[in-house]
């Protein structure tokens, strides 16, 4: 089986258009599981891990954005400067799998798979991240909300590669919380990212719908109430509104009823954390 290891984006996109059936791999922590389960039978593989611009990240305080290359591993987001700039992303990164998985897994892969349970995705949603896509001949940047279109479905075209994301910095509190039935290394049953920017709350929900759900109505309500007026009972009502915006299903991991309940509780708690009450 040929494995191409391009060292530039140009090489990578050309290889992909010459080998349309090739499978892209970054950390392989999703792809190899699918191969082991016989769900995928790659005949050609393009590894994106050695492309310098994909490994790169930077914080641009002047323009107020962070750029993270698609193959930067979660381990890099957990601590240090990136974690300081994007605490919610750091918290999400810390919940992913085990140290081994976090050393290999990437945003490119999380976006590529686009599972509603992907832990970085509620963060990218709440922070209004932009996803960068390139083919041999085109380049485009898509807001996360337009990128994820269904469970494990995204608007990436078959000849496109994700090079990275741009995340606007926020000037208020941000955090992430995830419920799983084990204290670590567990797939999310329900998760919430809450971020505050310019005094406005944004909230995004994971594992409770076919895509990551932005709680727009709950956001509008809480922003009309005003952060300075958040009391425990206001936070409670916020949680109830968030719960109403979720669209979970029953499966072997949990029940729709519990998921709905859990996102509500998480939203309430994150809001209280956000306003430090």
């Amino acid at each position: 089986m040929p494995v191409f290891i391009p060292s530039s984006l140009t090489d990578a996109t050309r290889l992909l258009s010459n080998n349309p059936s090739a499978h892209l791999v970054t950390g392989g922590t999703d792809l190899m599981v699918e191969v082991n389960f016989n769900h995928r039978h790659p005949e050609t593989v393009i590894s994106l891990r050695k492309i310098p611009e994909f490994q790169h990240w930077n914080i641009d305080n002047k323009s107020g954005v962070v750029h993270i290359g698609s193959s930067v591993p979660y381990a890099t987001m957990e601590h240090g400067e990136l974690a300081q700039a994007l605490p919610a992303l750091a918290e999400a990164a810390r919940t992913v799998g085990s140290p081994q998985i976090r050393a290999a897994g990437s945003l490119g892969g999380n976006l590529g798979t686009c599972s509603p349970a992907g832990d970085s995705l509620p963060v990218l949603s709440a922070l209004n991240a932009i996803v960068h896509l390139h083919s041999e001949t085109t380049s485009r940047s898509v807001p996360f909300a337009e990128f994820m279109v269904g469970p494990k479905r995204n608007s990436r075209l078959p000849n496109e590669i994700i090079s990275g994301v741009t995340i606007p910095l926020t000037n208020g509190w941000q955090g992430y919380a995830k419920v799983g039935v084990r204290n670590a290394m567990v797939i999310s049953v329900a998760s919430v990212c809450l971020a505050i920017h310019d005094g406005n709350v944004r909230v995004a929900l994971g594992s409770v719908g076919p895509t990551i759900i932005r709680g727009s109505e709950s956001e509008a309500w809480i922003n009309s109430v005003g952060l300075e007026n958040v009391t425990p009972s206001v936070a409670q009502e916020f949680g109830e509104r968030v719960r109403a915006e979720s669209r979970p299903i029953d499966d072997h991991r949990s029940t729709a009823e519990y998921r709905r309940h859990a996102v509500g509780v998480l939203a309430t708690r994150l809001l209280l954390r956000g306003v430090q009450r």
Partner: protein
Amino acid sequence: MTITKTQRDILGSSALRPDGVSKVQGDFAFSSDLHAENMLWGATLRSPHPYARIISIDLSGAWKIAGVECVITAEDVPGQLTYGLISEDQPVFAKDFVRYMGEPVAAVAADHPETCRRALAAIVVVYEVLTPLTNPEHAIDEAREPIHPDGNIIRRQQIIHGDVNATAPIVVEGTYDIGMQDQAFLGTESALAIPDHDGAGIEVFVATQWLHEDRKQMAKCLALPEEKVRLVLGGVGGAFGAREDISLQVHTALLAMRTSRPVKMQYGREESFFGHVHRHPAQIWMRHHANTDGRIVKIEARFVFDGGAYSSTSSAVLINGVTHTQGPYQCPNAIVDGYAVRTNNPPCGAMRGFGVVQACFAHEGQMDKLAVATGIDEVEIRLRNIIHTGDTMITGQVLESVAPLERCIRETAAMPLPREMEAHPHELDLPGGSGRTADRRNIVRGIGWGVSMKNLMYSEGFDDYSTARCTLTNGSVELKFATSEVGQGFVTLAPQIARSVLGVDNVTYDTIDTQIGSAGSTSASRQTWMSGGAVDGACRMVRERLFEHVGALHGIDPLRLAIDDTDVVDTIGSLRITVQEASTNFTVSETFEYHHRPTQDLDDNGQGNCHVAFAFVAHRAVVDVDVELGLVKVVQIATAQDVGRVLNPMSVIGQIEGGIAQGLGLAVMEEIIVTNGIVRNPSFTDYLLPTALDAPQVLISMIEEPDPQAPMGAKGVGEAPCISVTPAIVAAIRNATGKSIDRCPVRPQDICF
């Protein structure tokens, strides 16, 4: 520099595992690492349906694939078409019907695992899908036609004891549900079969719990005399009961015999979930009658164990369940009705705790209800009822084992509780762990108790003896036994025994295989007692021969001789020579068979001396619960366990800590989810095992009161740790939340709704 004499690795020392370093470094060859020249790979085609009639099987597509050497079905089984540990009701390959999802239908051998996969995909099986029988009650009420010629009830056993009309002022009852747990060993099933050149026999390397029983069942199916089937233990990566039944043994051997080439089979993780039996899910109803002082007067109970499609050890699991209805408490009167039934759910059989786990979950729930109803605290109510040596159990059997139950409970109660949670705890210490779901104010702490009693060895008249040979020559000992080493540490213990009895230091053990008599199964907490007894017996016989030899040489009555450290000494004279010297140019070899005392079948009223011996344990659990989200963190387990005598402290601690982790799994996360006969989570992504972050602090007291019936005073320690820890954790969750939760594992929705 001072040289201190290194401590000898005798009984009582924490001798290291002989395979420990190689396992940690990754050098140890597990059975899945085996390889042979010219080897083929085998693979199994399994039923996607829980219940269906097989209309036709077309193998032609598979035969056409280059690299495929053999394709077999039920038609190709030369001997008996079915096998089983107690009743032979399970087909080697399904013939007319498939009765559970994952049942083997055909097998292939090919040059590569990928060729095997393609060959399996090319086999066309036409099924007439039938409605599965999945509700165990429907197996009992005969609403459904039998799904197997042997009927839908695998066994029913009642226990009627004492005055069934007895009454008492306090009555508590409950219905308890226990989910289907998986043994989840890390080394999946694997075997390598090498046919003899003359085609008349076969050698099979396999990871198993009981070589001789596998051989017996394999020989019947393969139509070979038993001596033509030679089994060698492959490196075993855990067992916990899941390797007691045959899985790929017959398939691998048959493919090898058909192709006259070595064949290796190895299950992947998903296949492993279908390839072995699980812990029985059970529903248990109990009603306890007690006096106002808390003393139990009568217990009524009904047990339903879902055995799944084939009987495996269900009938023995049932017996363990019903005979442990009372738990470690006195009970003069009892009426118990128990069923093990057949359904189209996955077959269930042996798992650590074997029926007692289920019974204990119910009786401990009852003890807590009794505590509430009488207003007596949960420790005191247990102490008031505990059973003592000499008491009669509900089977009419008199408890003969040493029973230091009061010490178990009191020493557990005396252990320090964990500190209060800090004002700003680390996020990983809170329920929800890395998910950061909780803040300090969301957490409530709870404490719960569980106490249990577990039978050791096989029951109901079964003579599960063990055999060992000891050979002494020139100061070195070689041991031979067929005891499966599945991680429990018999390969550490056996040399410790030889060193202690014979005063030697250099002890090796021969390949573990069927070239000696049976050792019985590595299960039922029995190998320290049984195979330990056999090694001890063989070493003692050798010691007698050595004393005779030394006595003759020195003109001393051998009865005066003894072993002191590494010397042979004359106890009333001055002779002192090293064992090394005494055995120079002297070789002696003795084989010993250890049998436990005989037991009896139960009669129709469940009366009979059916068990050999018992061990006792107490557990106290402390949990932190996020009540609103239903998430739990087990903070601490304190335990005092009746071990008889500690032969290797590190091994015992390992068993206790590991057993607690397994019992914790059943309490809060481990469950195979089956809907309409379909397994929903056959992977470690969704079948959750505790991680290091879920493991609690464990405080251990090993209670040493040597049992005179045990060969070295030591009781088996393998199962006790995982039995009452589950109800202790669930009781702690009830205590924290005030909710009545009568099922395990406890799911978030059981707590928060």
